[in-house]
């Protein structure tokens, strides 16, 4: 598992840096966008194998990003990162075909969620 193209959508600069750093550790090529609508726009420009997105962001939510990703062919795997989500949001994330990564997480947890999502 290396060389995959990853889109990171995260409005918190620090958490965005962490996600990029984890991608680098896993030897992925990662791109960062700072909000939901920029994330959706970026999805149209490149073939990504994986999208790691925050849940609550300006522009569009992580669920909207996941739903948009689902419409692509081939559809990239999606991981929604969140500290707090309601059971309803968890359902919506699952229905959008995305995996959930709960903050705070360590690098190993992130790796296993990413590996499972790329299976």
């Amino acid at each position, binding site marked *: 598992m290396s060389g995959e193209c990853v889109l990171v959508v995260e409005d918190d600069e*620090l958490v965005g840096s962490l996600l990029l*750093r984890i991608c680098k550790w896993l030897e992925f090529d990662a791109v960062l966008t700072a*909000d939901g609508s920029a994330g959706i726009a970026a999805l149209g420009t490149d073939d990504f194998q994986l999208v790691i997105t925050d849940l609550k962001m300006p522009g569009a939510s992580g669920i909207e990003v996941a739903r948009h990703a689902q419409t692509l062919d081939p559809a990239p795997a999606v991981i929604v990162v969140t*500290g707090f989500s309601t059971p309803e949001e968890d359902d919506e994330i699952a229905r959008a075909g995305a995996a959930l990564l709960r*903050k*705070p*997480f360590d*690098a*190993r947890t992130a790796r296993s969620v990413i590996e499972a999502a790329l299976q």
Partner: protein
Amino acid sequence: MTDNVDRLEALMATLLGVANASFDTRAPRTYEGDEWDVLAFLVNSTADEVQNLLQDLETEREELKTAQDRLVQSERLAALGRLSAGVAHEINQPLTVITGLTDLIRLEPDKTIADVEEDLALIAEACRQLCVIADSIRSYGRTSQVATSATPALAAPEGAAQLLATVLQDRGIALTWDVPSSLPDIEANVDELRQVFINLLSNASDALATVKDPTITVSITATAGELVYRVRDNGPGVELESPSSIFEPFVTTKSAGEGTGLGLSIAQRIVVDHHGSIEYISLPDQGACFDVRIPRADCARERTG
């Protein structure tokens, strides 16, 4: 004759007691059925009735007070709940960064300190954010008896404008003043009150980031008891379900890392400490508008005697 004077005095003493809400005295009865005795009976029953009513009133007031206390307590607990949820959310971001990066560093033990320099810088930044959050909470939770004195009306808003002058200039924001030539002093602690205007002006300038001809207007009007400071911008305004929720801690329209959502609740606490009030005025399609009311020094001194 003397007898009648005594009786009259007893009746008056009873009525005087009722008038003063002290019910120790009753008019003596003869039970002879004469008019004096009927009068004594009527006065005494009136005194009894008023005494009972007052006792009932007192009991009901105590019950009401208990119910009110309970309501305040539950409101406080609800606010604490919201505060805790907000704190948890704020802390979670830097915590994630620290957790993730320390784990990465431990997973790559062959790397040197120089190799992980960037990681360490990010961890340090995350720690700094945690400190800012801790400071904000401390400032929010502090209940203060502010020492106030007669203060010129413009001291606090002008002080804030001076501190923010560079920020406003860099963003091309015009700050206009609509102020009468003479204004009475207010009863204020200028350091505390300046913070209120710093928070209002910074919020306004953040809201104006994408606006054409960004302008903030500060207008001041004097009423009989207070000065009304109106801070208005021509930004997009704030859409809220309830206008007062804007002052609740951690209510923010800003993205993560841009604001803690404590600015307006701190401003509100300071204004309330000044025996004043702060209100969000919702003007459709006209940007955000806040009215801050601070007691005039002459009126404040009359009140405290």
